[in-house]
């Protein structure tokens, strides 16, 4: 078909790296097979193959990025064509699918991001899972996981996208269930795969609908057709968009299918960090961004007078629900997991309100700081808390001993909370700002409340992890400075982790005693440092506050829709057209709003373009101020509460908390203070009551009892229905009918058995009797 021509045409213009970008997923995919088949025989158990493949992919991705930047700069002012290459994968009648690459700004961004993060995570893992029984398998899965994400990212059509999408599902199953000896882990893996699979139904259906609507599965073709309004029915397109969005809900852990994400923490920490930063969970967001014209047109985002739409709504709910849930977690990884869910909500909401650039940029920045946070959590558990992730039992006060981890954590937390001049600030602020700017006022408030909550729960987690009195395993760890390095060995012996214990022992001996830092090995800390730097630095690629729009400039051609040149005018024009259409053809307008909108689009067919996204708003400190104030408030309040509640320190907030508590709880301030003084486990209750008792409890209750139970219930009901159908219908009715015909034959045989007596005389009698009867009948009928 047309692919060959396209490739030839681009042959001289695009650079080598851009042309060969398909190698980026191919190299890890081949590496996967190498690791599986010969990995165990290699000196480092296959991890070197994985690392080398990721580094080579990274090199190609960076090369491609450079050439892409050249391409964008060279083609000033014009529409930048993506670099597409396809080879026929399969064909059937007139439908033909290719495998290949679709490289544009969005793909380049994701490619660099995924290869970079994967490289760091693999490096980290060589230390973290050292001595694991399935070391080789771990790296094989990790490599394939990256390959899946990369294949999805540069997919030129829906089929390759589904391929990458599902391969990630498989690898998440393998990695989450990496320690499948324990039932809980295998169940978490099953749950992850299954929940995502439920969403994937939408992907299959949506893809089929896209093929039906546009007659092609090429992403470029779909986007172009959707943007040009080349479809028959707005309603069908809307249904297709909803179906696809269901898949994104499942994959990106949006409400109400987010329940698998916290359970997925059963996997090794590097897996969590990879899963939650640049791969798997952002796949859903990426899909929406990739097919943005379909969603934008299908759901009529930014239509005049629209105050909410499905994507923004789901994103908004997810932000609040997940942030509320993050407050009640004791497991540091679960806090981070809920925080990821909440941040994914931001991305979705951003896409839902038309802030494409902000959302995509948030994918980019979020990957760095979230990956860093997870790796910090892993570093702590690896070195300080003996594979425990319980903040309240096994952590606390470790900031002194782990300066690198602590530093990286603090920077990333700042970025996550959106402190000015960190990466998270630039991306998140643009989303919130756009919500206001594009008249999605509700979501503006959701956004800033979410920012407030983020600051608060991260402060709580930080306090519990790094400050206060050391507890549990962390106390043992801190105890090293009092006694000697031998103690570390004892601790490990107790917990029966001989593989890790041996390693830590060496570290302990190798370090100057007593006041030197006691951080993790370089293979763990190096990724932390790099990511920590990027958690701040990445933001300066697109900092509206400093009037930097470089990232936007590089990726804007991937939106698939032009920017509205002057937002007000276009709005007016569209409104005018709507009126015009309504005036000209009252019946169409009367039918329903969707048709009316569509009529409006068709009416404006001559005006080029038909659909457009609003330009990102101009940054102003005054617009950002309410959000920033809330962030600061959230941080301070949470810090004060943490100090007051957990650190048992008097400060203005303890009075404040006390007062609130006294007003709310029938008990009085004394009672409350007493409780605060000696009961650690009440900590949760106080925070919960003060901040979001009804909300988070209800949300958690719904989470555990309604959604989770529904998921389980559907499974159980399926099983029961299966049982019932099998027992009653299959075995009784259907099979019964079959057996009954057999039984009937057998019974009639029994009934007729006496006739076959074997006595000649009897046979003769029968024969002649029958002949006589026949003769009589013959006579009667003939007479």
């Amino acid at each position, binding site marked *: 078909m047309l692919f060959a021509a396209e490739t030839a045409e681009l042959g001289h213009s695009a650079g080598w790296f851009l042309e060969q970008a398909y190698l980026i997923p191919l190299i890890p995919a081949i590496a996967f097979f190498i690791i599986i088949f010969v990995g165990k025989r290699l000196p480092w158990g296959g991890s070197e193959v994985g690392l080398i493949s990721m580094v080579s992919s990274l090199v190609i991705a960076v090369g491609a990025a450079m050439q892409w930047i050249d391409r964008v700069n060279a083609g000033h002012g014009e529409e930048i064509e993506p670099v597409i290459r396809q080879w026929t994968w399969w064909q059937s009648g007139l439908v033909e699918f290719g495998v290949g690459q679709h490289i544009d700004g969005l793909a380049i961004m994701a490619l660099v991001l995924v290869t970079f993060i994967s490289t760091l995570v693999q490096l980290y893992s060589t230390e973290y899972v050292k001595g694991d029984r399935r070391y080789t398998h771990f790296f094989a899965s990790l490599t394939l996981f990256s390959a899946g994400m990369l294949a999805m990212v540069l997919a030129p059509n829906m089929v390759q996208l589904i391929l990458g999408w599902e391969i990630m599902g498989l690898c998440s199953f393998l990695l989450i269930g990496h320690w499948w000896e324990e039932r809980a882990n295998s169940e978490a893996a099953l749950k992850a795969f299954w929940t995502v699979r439920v969403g994937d139904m939408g992907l299959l259906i949506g893809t089929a609908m896209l093929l039906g609507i546009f007659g092609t599965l090429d992403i470029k073709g779909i986007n172009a057709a959707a943007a040009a309004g080349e479809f028959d029915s707005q309603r069908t397109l809307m249904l297709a968009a909803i179906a696809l969005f269901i898949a994104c809900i499942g994959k990106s852990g949006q409400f109400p299918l987010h329940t698998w994400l916290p359970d997925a923490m059963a996997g090794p920490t590097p897996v969590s960090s990879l899963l939650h930063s640049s791969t798997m969970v952002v796949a859903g967001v990426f899909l929406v961004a990739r097919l943005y014209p379909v969603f934008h047109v299908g759901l009529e985002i930014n239509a005049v007078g629209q105050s909410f739409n499905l994507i923004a709504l789901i994103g908004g709910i997810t932000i609040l629900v997940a942030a509320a849930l993050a407050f009640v977690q004791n497991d540091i990884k679960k806090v981070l997991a809920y925080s990821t869910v909440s941040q994914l909500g931001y991305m979705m909401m951003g896409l839902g309100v038309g802030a494409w650039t902000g959302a995509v940029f948030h994918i980019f920045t979020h990957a760095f700081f979230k990956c860093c946070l997870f790796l910090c959590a892993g570093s702590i558990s690896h070195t300080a808390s003996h594979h425990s992730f319980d903040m309240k039992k096994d952590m606390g006060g470790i900031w002194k001993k782990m300066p690198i981890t602590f530093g990286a954590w603090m920077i990333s937390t700042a970025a996550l909370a959106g402190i000015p001049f960190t990466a998270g600030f630039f991306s998140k602020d643009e989303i919130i700002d756009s919500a206001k700017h594009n008249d999605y006022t509700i979501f503006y408030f959701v956004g800033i409340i979410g920012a407030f909550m983020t600051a608060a729960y991260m402060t709580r987690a930080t306090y519990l992890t790094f400050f206060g009195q050391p507890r549990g395993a962390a106390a043992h760890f801190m105890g090293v400075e009092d006694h000697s390095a031998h103690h570390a060995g004892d601790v490990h012996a107790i917990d029966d982790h001989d593989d890790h214990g041996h390693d830590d022992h060496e570290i302990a001996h190798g370090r100057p005693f007593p006041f030197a830092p006691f951080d993790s090995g370089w293979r763990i800390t190096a990724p932390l440092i790099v990511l920590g730097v990027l958690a701040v630095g990445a933001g300066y690629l697109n900092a509206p506050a400093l009037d930097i729009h470089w990232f936007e400039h590089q990726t804007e051609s991937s939106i698939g829709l032009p920017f509205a040149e002057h937002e007000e005018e276009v709005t007016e024009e569209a409104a005018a057209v709507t009126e015009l259409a309504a005036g000209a053809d009252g019946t169409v307008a009367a039918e329903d709003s969707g048709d009316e909108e569509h009529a409006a689009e068709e009416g404006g067919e001559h005006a080029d373009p038909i659909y457009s996204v609003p330009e990102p708003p101009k940054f102003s400190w005054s617009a950002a101020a309410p959000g920033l104030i809330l962030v600061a408030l959230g941080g301070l309040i949470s810090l004060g509460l943490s100090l007051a509640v957990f650190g048992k320190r008097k400060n203005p907030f303890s009075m404040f908390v006390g007062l609130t508590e006294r007003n709310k709880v029938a008990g009085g301030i004394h009672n409350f203070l007493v409780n605060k003084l000696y009961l650690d486990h009440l900590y949760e209750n106080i925070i919960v009551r003060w901040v979001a008792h009804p909300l988070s409890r209800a949300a958690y209750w719904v989470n555990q009892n309604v959604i989770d139970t529904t998921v389980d219930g559907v499974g159980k009901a399926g099983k029961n229905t299966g049982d019932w159908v099998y027992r009653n219908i299959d075995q009784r009715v259907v099979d019964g009918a079959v057996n009954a015909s057999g039984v009937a034959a057998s019974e009639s045989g029994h009934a007729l*058995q*006496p006739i*076959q007596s074997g006595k*000649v*005389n009897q046979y*003769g009698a029968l024969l*002649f009797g029958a002949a006589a009867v026949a003769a009589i009948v013959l006579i009667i009928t003939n007479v």
Partner: protein
Amino acid sequence: MYAANFLVLAAALFCFGVFGVIARKNAVMVLMSIELILNSVNLNLVAFALMNSVAIDGHVFALFVIAIAAAEVGVGLAMVLMIYRNRRTIALDELSEMKG
């Protein structure tokens, strides 16, 4: 020459034969009864052939029947002889081996 005479005689012979087949227990008697039946049929065939003087089908057919009856009796008697040797009886109702 009435056809009825032949037919009445043949019918009577046929009925004797049928009675013999059904009622007798002795295998030889049953064979003889079958002969009676066959011969009653022969009688009919010849009688009708006489009525229709052109065709000789009836005569030919009767000859065939006689030949086959001879063969049948030959085989039948041989079987009866073997049964008698093995079982020392030729009563038919004692020969049943089917578990009906």
